[in-house]
């Protein structure tokens, strides 16, 4: 909300400079988001009256203007503005005034100049020259109440606070509310604006009765009939204040309703009495299909149950949101029916949302206004209608309030306040600061304050609310910084998180860079990787853009999209990974959020200098990553060739830990990679953290080291080409005395027969309890080869 300090000053003396006031409000009441200064023109810029306008002897478009500055001095200057006229109040800049150059837009100092032979000692200024706007067609014409000779700073200078109004503080959406806070914070008295009215006589146009049909949505409706008003422009001071708050002046009646809304926070509406034909105002819910043309000229069909103000049965306003066009105040209106009501906040909010119409009024109602304010607003507006529009208030003031409420009383224990704040605040000090805020302290005994909450503070309902009032008034600086005492609770365990964090570190240690990509993807995004089978992702109803519409089922698309530009930048090995969630939909439940670690690898192995070596990464690099990140974390790590969606058949596998599948690995199908503009082989490694957790290895048990030497022996076995080396190795490791078997070569081609390959193993044989003899080792190997021959048709190469 924009709050003018000039306006504020009417209700409370401002004893601090604007920046200090803004700081006090921000710390204790409501954030001042910006401080805007109007003015600073200096003493050389003054209000002046145009005495004479004469033609310039040497130029048709220029004129000579003589101005009155209230003293002896009556300067005559050359003026080119088409709108200058005798009798006007204008802004005059003397020589030496700091202005904005009308042509260049740059700061300048006014000098005495001769224009076409006539000396001009000063200037009548435009808005552009005052730095207010870009308007340079004509000069500024001030209202007639501007005092001749006064510095413009004095007359029009102001400071505007942009105050953030929290949803729980309806009072702060008003100048008086902000003034009340400032007065309390600086210990100044508050001057409330006058609102006395003297209703006299019965209505000439007939009484307008008020009936609330739906009391659950309308808590109070105050109606005041003001007859005999003269519609015209409102006074300059009121127009200026409306403008300072960002509102456009319309006419005195409408301006008064807006002015009181800004001043007190109570929205009002003025009906043309003549257009309320039935003389009976009914507040009720709408029926199916009802419609209204609102003030902005829009025909609106109302949702069933919208709260309406009706003239008899005819809707004339959408309650709390906007009035209807055909009952609005017009230039020839003479009698006004003023509405000041309290509507249920949720109803106004729903209606505003349904109509996509949020107004200054509806925003205030949404926060929940106190019914007491409806009467205060009605009286203040009626007072101004009498003062400024010449009306007469008629009897009776209509006041429908089906369930009047009592003021809120609270017993606040000072012990509770201390419990919440951590420091004691004394009884007298507490009472004092609360009274400054408008609380009535009825009694303070036995450590309990008995309070009445002021009606404009609907946010204060419990003791802890009062604790907040106290601490924001005595200052947060009084709180000591202390650390938690008491018992440190035993933590909840989160083994999935623990394992994920280990994997995160291990992926980085394996030479992959961590990235973070968005959880939401485009339609193309989630289908492009082709790796999610028949699953359909959750869609969001209001995506921030079509790029982010579906909750991801796979981390692959985000990673491939991130990888592509990197590969355009460099050819040497790139590894990226992400730790994040996949969101697997479940019927009528929150999705299963699967913690996943996924990596992609591409490019050429670097040479000694880190330059691309020309040798592309291959499946073995990806497998190397799997082995490094999972070794010791899961038991029985192994790969099982499989056809998996999105991965190239023949270069894809499930990652297994014993019987459990815990992830996948493979080369991304080149057609998929192509969709991401990647032309080189890309390998993907993915681990599902919860699945890996199920296969989590124990802490590991120590096995005594053998004191006896091992016999090392290399064997090359010729087997069918399609026999998996892993299967052969498993069989080898079943051989007694063989303690390790490492593949060190695989060979195909001549002189081996077609369809065969040779797999070479480096074996270690060892006995736990003795030095193995060469004979014993050879016997074991012969038995092993014999068994492999029977099992796989394996032959010893060169044997």
């Amino acid at each position, binding site marked *: 909300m924009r709050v003018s300090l000039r306006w504020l000053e009417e209700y409370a003396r401002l004893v601090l400079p604007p920046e200090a006031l803004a700081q006090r409000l*921000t710390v*204790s*009441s*409501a*954030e001042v988001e910006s401080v805007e200064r109007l003015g600073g023109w200096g003493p050389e810029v003054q209000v002046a009256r145009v005495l004479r306008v004469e033609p310039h002897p040497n130029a048709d478009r220029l004129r000579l203007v003589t101005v009155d500055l209230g003293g002896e001095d009556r300067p005559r200057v050359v003026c080119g503005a088409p709108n200058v006229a005798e009798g006007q109040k204008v802004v005059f800049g003397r020589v030496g005034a700091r202005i904005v150059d009308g042509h260049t837009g740059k700061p300048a100092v006014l000098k005495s100049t001769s224009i076409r032979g006539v000396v001009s000692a000063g200037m009548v200024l435009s808005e552009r020259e005052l730095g207010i706007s870009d308007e340079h067609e004509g000069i500024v014409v001030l209202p007639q109440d501007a005092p001749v000779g006064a510095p413009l700073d004095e007359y029009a200078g102001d400071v505007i606070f942009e105050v953030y109004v*929290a*949803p*729980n*503080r309806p009072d702060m959406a008003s100048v008086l509310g902000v003034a009340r806070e400032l007065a309390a914070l600086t210990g100044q008295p508050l001057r409330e604006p006058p609102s006395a009215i003297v209703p006299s006589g019965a209505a000439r146009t007939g009484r307008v009765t008020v009936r609330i049909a739906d009391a659950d949505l309308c808590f109070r409706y105050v109606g005041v009939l003001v007859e005999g008003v003269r519609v015209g422009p409102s006074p300059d001071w009121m127009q200026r204040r409306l403008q300072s708050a960002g509102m456009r002046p319309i006419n005195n009646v409408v301006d008064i309703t807006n002015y009181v809304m800004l001043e007190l926070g109570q929205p009002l509406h003025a009906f043309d009495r003549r257009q309320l034909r039935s003389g009976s105002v009914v507040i009720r819910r709408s029926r199916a299909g009802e419609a209204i043309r609102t003030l902005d000229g829009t025909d609106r069909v109302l949702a069933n149950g919208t709260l309406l103000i009706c003239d008899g049965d005819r809707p004339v306003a959408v309650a709390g949101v906007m009035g209807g066009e055909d009952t609005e105040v017009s230039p020839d209106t003479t009698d006004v029916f003023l509405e000041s009501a309290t509507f249920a*906040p*949720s109803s106004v909010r729903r209606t505003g949302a349904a109509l996509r119409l949020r107004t200054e009024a509806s925003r205030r109602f949404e*926060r929940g206004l106190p019914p007491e304010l409806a009467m205060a607003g009605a009286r203040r507006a009626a007072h101004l209608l009498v003062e400024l529009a010449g009306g007469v208030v008629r009897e009776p003031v209509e006041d429908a309030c089906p369930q009047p409420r009592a003021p809120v009383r609270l017993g606040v224990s000072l012990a509770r306040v201390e419990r*919440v*704040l951590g*420091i004691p605040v004394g009884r007298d000090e507490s009472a004092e600061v609360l009274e400054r805020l408008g609380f009535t302290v009825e009694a303070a005994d036995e450590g309990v304050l008995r309070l009445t909450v002021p009606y404009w503070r609907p946010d204060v309902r419990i003791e*802890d609310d009062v*604790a*907040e009032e106290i601490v*924001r008034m005595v200052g*947060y*600086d009084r709180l000591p*910084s202390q*650390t*938690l*005492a*008491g018992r*440190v*609770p035993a933590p*909840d365990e989160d083994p999935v*998180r623990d394992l994920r964090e280990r994997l*995160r*570190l291990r992926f980085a*240690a*394996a030479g*992959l*860079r*961590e*990235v*973070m*990509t968005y*959880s*939401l993807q485009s339609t193309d995004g989630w289908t492009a990787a082709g790796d999610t089978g028949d699953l359909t992702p*959750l*869609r*969001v*109803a*209001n995506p*921030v853009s079509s790029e982010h519409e579906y909750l991801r089922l796979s981390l692959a698309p985000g990673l491939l999209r991130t990888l592509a*530009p*990197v590969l355009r*930048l460099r050819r040497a*090995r*790139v590894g990226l990974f992400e*730790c994040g*969630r996949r*969101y697997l939909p479940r019927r009528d439940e*929150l*999705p299963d959020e699967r913690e996943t670690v996924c990596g992609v690898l591409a490019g050429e192995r*670097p040479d000694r200098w*880190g330059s691309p070596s020309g040798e592309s990464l291959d499946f073995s690099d990806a497998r190397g990553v799997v082995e490094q990140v999972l070794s010791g974390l899961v038991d029985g790590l192994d790969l099982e060739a499989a056809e998996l969606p999105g991965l190239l058949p023949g270069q894809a596998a499930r990652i297994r830990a014993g019987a459990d599948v815990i992830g996948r690995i493979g080369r991304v199908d080149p057609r998929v990679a192509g969709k991401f503009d990647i032309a080189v082989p890309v390998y993907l490694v993915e681990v599902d953290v919860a699945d890996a957790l199920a296969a989590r290895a124990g802490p590991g048990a120590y096995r005594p080291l053998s004191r006896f030497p091992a016999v090392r022996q290399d064997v090359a076995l010729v087997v069918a080409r399609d026999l998996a080396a892993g299967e052969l190795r498993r069989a080898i490791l079943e051989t007694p005395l063989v303690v390790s078997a490492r593949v060190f070569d695989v060979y195909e081609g001549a002189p081996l027969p077609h369809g065969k390959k040779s797999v070479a193993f480096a074996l270690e044989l060892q006995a736990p309890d003795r030095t193995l003899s060469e004979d014993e080792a050879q016997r074991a190997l012969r038995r092993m080869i014999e068994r492999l021959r029977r099992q796989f048709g394996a032959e010893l190469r060169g044997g």
Partner: protein
Amino acid sequence: MAAIRNVEEIRDGALAALAQASDRAALQEWRVRVLGRKGELTTVLRSLGSLPEAERRVVGAAANAARDVLDAAYTERAARVEQEELRQATERERVDVTLPGRPLPAGSLHVITRTLADVLDAFRSLGFWVAEGPEVEWDEYNFTRLRIPEDHPARDMFDTIWVDYTRPDGRRPMLLRTHTSPMQVRVMERRQPPIRVVVPGRCYRFEATDATHEWMFLQVEGLAVDEGVSLADLKGTLEEFARRIFGRERRVMLRHAYFPFVEPGVELAVDCFACHGTGCRVCGATGWIELLGAGMVHPEVLADVGYDARRYTGFAFGMGIERVALIRHGIDDIRMFYSNDVRFLEQFPGV
């Protein structure tokens, strides 16, 4: 005494030859030639038997003396040669230590991961444990149970991305959490006080992206509930946190703020580590950097999970990790974090 002369000649000749031997092979050759089994001196010694006894004694003594001299000379020469060879080898194998190392694959952790780890470590050391919760949430947890019922104007504080899922009653109850605060309720539902927990996680807002706003962000929620937890404890706990992250001499300032699920509610600022409170570019000339929102858990939130709100009090806070990282590293655009420009990632190498 030709034999004696012979011994002396052999000795002098061998010493001269030894001086010429400049490598290991020449030394070896010399040793075999002079001192070996068939060497010159050995031959002399072998031939002693054929000499008369008097001469034998004299020549024998001379030959033995010569042998000792040559042995010693050899040892000295060998040491010299070895040292010289070592010197040459060292010279040959000298490396340019300023050349780049043979590259290992360069892995790294995201700067947000590292910032988060530091933040969590700070709270762990104060006795907090770490929990995580669902990113896709029910309206009930994200709003209603935090005292933000439907049609409440406070909902405007949280522009929400809703999941396209409608119940038969026409309600749309599923959303992407707008903050980590629903985990306050989830943690309290499954445990009794005392509680000290921090909850990191992704959150989402329906928001246009610019240099200071992202629609996806990482938040850390904090919650401490016990008998006697107060606003002063909140201040002290967060001050200790700020000191760990931004430097020991930091001070914090509380100011009033409104969040429906706390009472009192505050915002916490830390004095600027760059200008120490005098005002600069980092803090926007105010001397203070706004860090997070916090407050005392509203007693109705406590009562809603079945806690005795007269007996227990608690504080809660929520902070954006991106903001911590922006401030800490002087990054000027929040969009850097999730656009993953590799040049950005490479500015934060390692783990």
